[in-house]
């Protein structure tokens, strides 16, 4: 791992990848509008170069608001990546350094592309929460597993059309035949030829220690519903029983603190005024809409002002810590609090905690995403958004105070605080999260040593 990464990132990378990098760089006296048009002009060149870099899952470049009214305009550069920064940043510079240097003109660097990595690392902003839909999958694996499924489907269609398999052919026989066919293909097709590598022992140990650290925080009990769901998903019955027992014992330690946390939040909710946010700018919304739904995956970048009290800034920090723990240990089956369409969601607190930056790459329409926000994912979304200026009031952290108006008001607020992304790239814009996970499961099934007839039949149904 690179010198550019903090130690915590390096340790976490042993058990949870890919990695995320975000930099927020002031670029001098440029106006926001000038910066937007500067990036927009360079966008085609930058986008055209991104695919050649390799190992980049997603990339965005945004003209971000200044920290204070009349302050310096800023460039937000953010990506999710496989390689270490030390090896990736030079590749980025080689592919699009001149364009990026032009984007960052006016920032505190020599305006030579060689000096850009230093600038980006210097202005790095740290994710407070980073959710991964497909954990420990590289770009290469994602694409090759998709190619594998395509090949399996094609073989299956061919054999079925030839009448080679009838209703009485054993599913396990078919699975083994398919495996044989894949392994006989030329190596240059770069299809996976075995199961995905499992986590190293060091990775497993570090993950376990991180889990223990999570439960050292006494108020993590606010995530009780999600913790219980995660325990229920543990595959090994013995381990699941141990987890239930440990969780039960933990409440002796956590009950008081968790209860106190809820009471504190409720008190805050009662004393705070209900601030009604302004309506979103129709022209801006129209410009954003014009960039949506061009592929299966979409993106949003939100720039939320946090409620203007230090209590809320601190509370948000604590909630984001909790949600990061949820992402690391409880929402690890492809869904963020039951929202199963998110590839990458990153939440940062910038400007000394006064701004909440939320970036997400998700599948399907924004309407669907909003419905998930307010429905199945509300237990993750509402606690975070309740700290945002203009968010309608909540009740006991997770619930809307007035359910009849909460949804429309929050949806309007989200459009109000959404900012335009000038450059957005995805390495697999038409592969949904669930498809990526299903492809990974097909690979695991194909290379499983043996399967019962029922399991093989279920595996075949996924092709």
């Amino acid at each position, binding site marked *: 791992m690179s010198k550019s990464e903090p130690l915590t990132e390096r340790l976490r990378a042993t058990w949870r990848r890919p990695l995320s990098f975000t930099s927020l760089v002031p670029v001098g006296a440029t106006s926001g509008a000038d910066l937007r048009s500067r990036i927009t002009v360079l966008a085609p060149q930058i986008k055209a170069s991104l695919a050649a870099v390799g190992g980049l899952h997603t990339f965005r470049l945004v003209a971000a608001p200044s920290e204070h009214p009349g302050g310096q305009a800023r460039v937000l550069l953010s990506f999710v990546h496989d390689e270490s920064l030390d090896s990736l940043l030079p590749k980025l510079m080689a592919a699009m350094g001149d364009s990026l240097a032009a984007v960052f003109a006016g920032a505190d660097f020599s305006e030579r592309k060689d000096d850009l990595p230093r600038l980006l690392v210097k202005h790095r902003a740290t994710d407070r929460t980073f959710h991964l839909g497909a954990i420990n999958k590289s770009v290469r694996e994602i694409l090759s597993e998709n190619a594998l499924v395509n090949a399996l489907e094609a073989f299956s269609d061919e054999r079925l059309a030839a009448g080679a398999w009838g209703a009485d*052919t054993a599913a396990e026989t078919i699975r083994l035949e398919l495996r044989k066919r894949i392994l006989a293909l030329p190596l240059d097709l770069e299809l996976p030829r075995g199961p995905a590598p499992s986590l190293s022992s060091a990775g497993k140990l570090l993950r376990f220690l991180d889990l223990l650290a999570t439960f050292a925080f006494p108020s993590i009990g606010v995530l009780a519903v999600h913790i219980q769901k995660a325990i229920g998903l543990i595959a090994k019955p013995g381990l699941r029983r141990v987890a239930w027992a440990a969780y039960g014992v933990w409440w002796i330690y956590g009950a008081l603190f968790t209860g106190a946390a809820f009471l504190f939040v409720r008190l805050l909710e009662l004393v705070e005024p209900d601030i009604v946010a302004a309506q979103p700018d129709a022209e801006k919304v129209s410009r954003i*809409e014009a960039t*949506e739904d*061009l592929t*299966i995956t979409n993106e949003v970048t939100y720039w939320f002002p946090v409620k203007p009290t230090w209590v809320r800034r601190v509370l948000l920090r604590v909630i984001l810590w909790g949600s990061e723990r949820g992402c690391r240990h409880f929402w690890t089956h492809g869904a963020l609090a039951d929202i199963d369409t998110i590839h990458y969601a990153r939440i940062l607190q910038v400007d000394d905690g006064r701004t909440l930056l939320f970036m997400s790459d998700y599948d*399907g329409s924004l*309407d669907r995403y909003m419905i998930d926000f307010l429905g199945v994912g509300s237990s993750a979304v509402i606690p975070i958004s309740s700290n945002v200026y203009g968010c309608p009031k909540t009740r006991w952290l997770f619930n809307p105070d007035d359910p009849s*108006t909460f949804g429309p008001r929050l949806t309007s607020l989200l459009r109000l605080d959404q900012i335009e992304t000038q450059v957005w790239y995805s390495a697999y814009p038409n592969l949904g999260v669930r*498809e990526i996970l299903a492809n990974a499961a097909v690979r695991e099934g194909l290379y499983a040593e043996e399967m019962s007839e029922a399991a093989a039949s279920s595996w075949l149904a996924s092709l």
Partner: protein
Amino acid sequence: MKPPLDTGDIQALVFSGHGRFPESLAMGFAVAEPEAAKRSALGLVRSEISFGLSRGERTRAAQLLLSAVGVAALGGPAILEGLDTAFREGMVSPQRSRALGDAGINDPSGWLWRDRDVHLMLLVYGPDAAGVETTARAVRQTLASGWKAVFELPVCSPQDRREPFGFRDGITSPRIDLGDLNLREPGVDFLAPGDVLLGERTAAGTLNAPPPLGVGGSYLAIRQVEQDVEAFWKFWASQSRNAQEAIWLAAKAVGRWPNGMPVGAGAAGPQPPAVEEEIMRPMSFTADQEGTGCPYGAHIRRANPRDTLETDPRVSLAVVAQHRIIRRGRMYGARAPTAVYPAGFDVPELGASDPEASKDRGLLFMCLCSDLTGQFEFIQQTWLNNPQFADRRDESDPITPGVDVVQDSRRLSIPGKPMRRRIHALPRWSRVRAGGYFLLPGRRALEHLLSQ
């Protein structure tokens, strides 16, 4: 506490599809002279337009719809403030077209009419063609002052209840929940008033104050969808060894047998005889998690995933409830060319046939909702045209015309043993020929707009 619905202020189409009146006519008009247009339309509202509940006393019906351009022409653009963005934009904009799959053969540049050009639409219903013509003549006469005619399209509700491909339609037919006033009928379930009417409480519990023009109103999404019946049956025949298998494959694509019976698991068998009770029984997919009966990619499962959209059936029903619509569609054009149906197809005796397969025919799809984006467009984009709906890979609805975002997802998987059967390269046998978003205003809102 919200007062009960003022049903007399609401156009009758919200409560009834006017099934008693099989013949009907859709008439489109544009404003020629605004002041005269308002006067004549007001006369029409007072004399012809049907409001409120009817318990069989009506002898005819007429409904009045306005497009956003029409509203602006009559009351000025400011009056649109607060109405649905999709309604204000109209059905033809890059965003709307992407959401609806209006690309390729559905490209709106080739449409016959659209809401931008049709400011007012009238739907006239009667017991027979002569009755409809009598009302239509009165309408034409009244609107001769201030309006110019854009199009007329005769539409009907066939007695056999079959759409042109030969399948029974309109089985799942929700109604607005009127509490004590509800009529209990088999196959009917109820929607929260707010899912149809502006300013009422929705299934999700939200309650928004509508702008004055929206009070007592609902949105109507309309699409004229042409159906190529010959291409439809030729394709299924090309994939089959015999006529029975062709019908079975088409039934898998639709999700029901032509006679409306649920399609079950197992090999290609003959269509079971129609049993009305079974046809009308509320459908559940919980016993069909693998899709071996009704495939996940089938039209009816995509259009209304019911209790298997999410893992928990209750959560699924709650999510689906937020996107329900009330359909009011009718058939247009020549009657179905039943001669192109496969041999052994049970053409009902009531079905009138037109032997010419190439004639223009199809569905004038109409649906009521209170949120065009969250209901009508959501169903189109997230369920029907979504290549990854319910974990499909590169599939889209086999029946409806929408083009998906990837643009080449024309597959259908039919689960079976030892593996699914996959149908590739499904042709597009239906295409959108016209359409628009309209407001079905309440009586007081209409009178206020037209009296200004």
